[in-house]
């Protein structure tokens, strides 16, 4: 039997940083899972993701549904991976991103995100990077801020059968 999940890397920041990037990701796996407990140096900030250093927002799209305890709705965006699951100066938000068939070269890359922040709300997101290239690097960042010390991001790969 083949073990499903392999831990590939974990980074915990000891000082503030603009992003956490995992590079030279092997194509040996089927899917990737990224688990983030982010923390900002100031205020409430949304989390974003870039693949292969592609920083063009128009190459990403996502659909979001969210609830905040009193209302709910759906919207669209680009490289966002949270909505009410955004991070603040504590570690009370958690985001799990599932990146499917990340090493395939015959399809755009689709990812599912579930993010929560108990004090503000809960989100489910489907995103797509409009590119057939295999993903070899992932950049995790805050869209309007800086990651604080204590931010932890882990990356796992799922084996092929």
């Amino acid at each position, binding site marked *: *039997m*083949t*073990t*499903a*999940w392999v831990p590939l890397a974990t980074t915990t920041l000891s000082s503030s940083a603009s992003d956490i990037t995992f590079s030279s990701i092997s194509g040996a796996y*089927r*899917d990737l899972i990224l688990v983030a407990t982010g923390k900002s140096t100031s205020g409430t900030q949304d989390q974003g993701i870039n693949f292969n250093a592609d920083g063009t927002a128009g190459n990403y*799209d*996502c*659909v*979001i*549904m*969210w609830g905040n305890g009193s209302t*709910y*709705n*759906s*919207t*669209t965006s680009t490289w966002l991976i949270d909505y009410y699951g955004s991070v603040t100066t504590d570690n009370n938000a958690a985001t799990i991103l*599932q990146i*499917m*068939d990340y090493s*395939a070269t*015959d*399809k*755009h890359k*689709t*990812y*599912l995100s*579930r993010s929560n922040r108990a004090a503000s709300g809960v989100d*489910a*997101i*489907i*995103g*797509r990077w*409009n590119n*057939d290239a295999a993903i070899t690097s992932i950049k995790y960042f805050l869209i309007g801020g800086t990651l604080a010390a204590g931010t932890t991001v882990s990356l796992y790969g*799922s*084996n*092929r*059968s």
Partner: protein
Amino acid sequence: MLAGNDAFSDSDEDILAETVLTSSQAEVTFSSLNTLAAGYQHLQIRAIIRTTRNANNSNYYLRFNGDTGANYAQHYMRGNGSAMESNNLQTSGTEGVYVYQGATSATSGTGTYAASVIDILDPFDTNKYTTTRILTGFTGAINRVLLESGLWMDTDAITSITLDEYYGSSFAAGSRFTLIGMK
């Protein structure tokens, strides 16, 4: 390891089976789960799916043990990028637990596939019905994100799972289905 036996694995989550389509196919079945999944408590199907249907999305269903009795029920919650809704999808369906809007199709846009993560909880416990939890969706010609519940109202242990395109079309080449067992 004794000759002829699998290597020992102390993993709590293992890949039990995987199907990657190189040509279109009407359905995919994971069978002999009484032996293949022996010793596991829960199952997860991870899928990335496009169908040959001439539309911008499609559905598929999960049929357990080939059961076509009126034994399936479920609800869903959906976002389309501008609004949310929730519905009772079926209370006594006969074809399976739907993965409603869990697939892209021929006019969804080049390279677009829907992703699904489907948890099947306690499928071998003969004291309870089998429940499912589904997160699925896609972006493209239209946008969908869905959380879906599912219930198979039968206490039999699951021995097979068939995934079948809802409209009679096929799963397209490039679609992939992975079955994971969780202890």
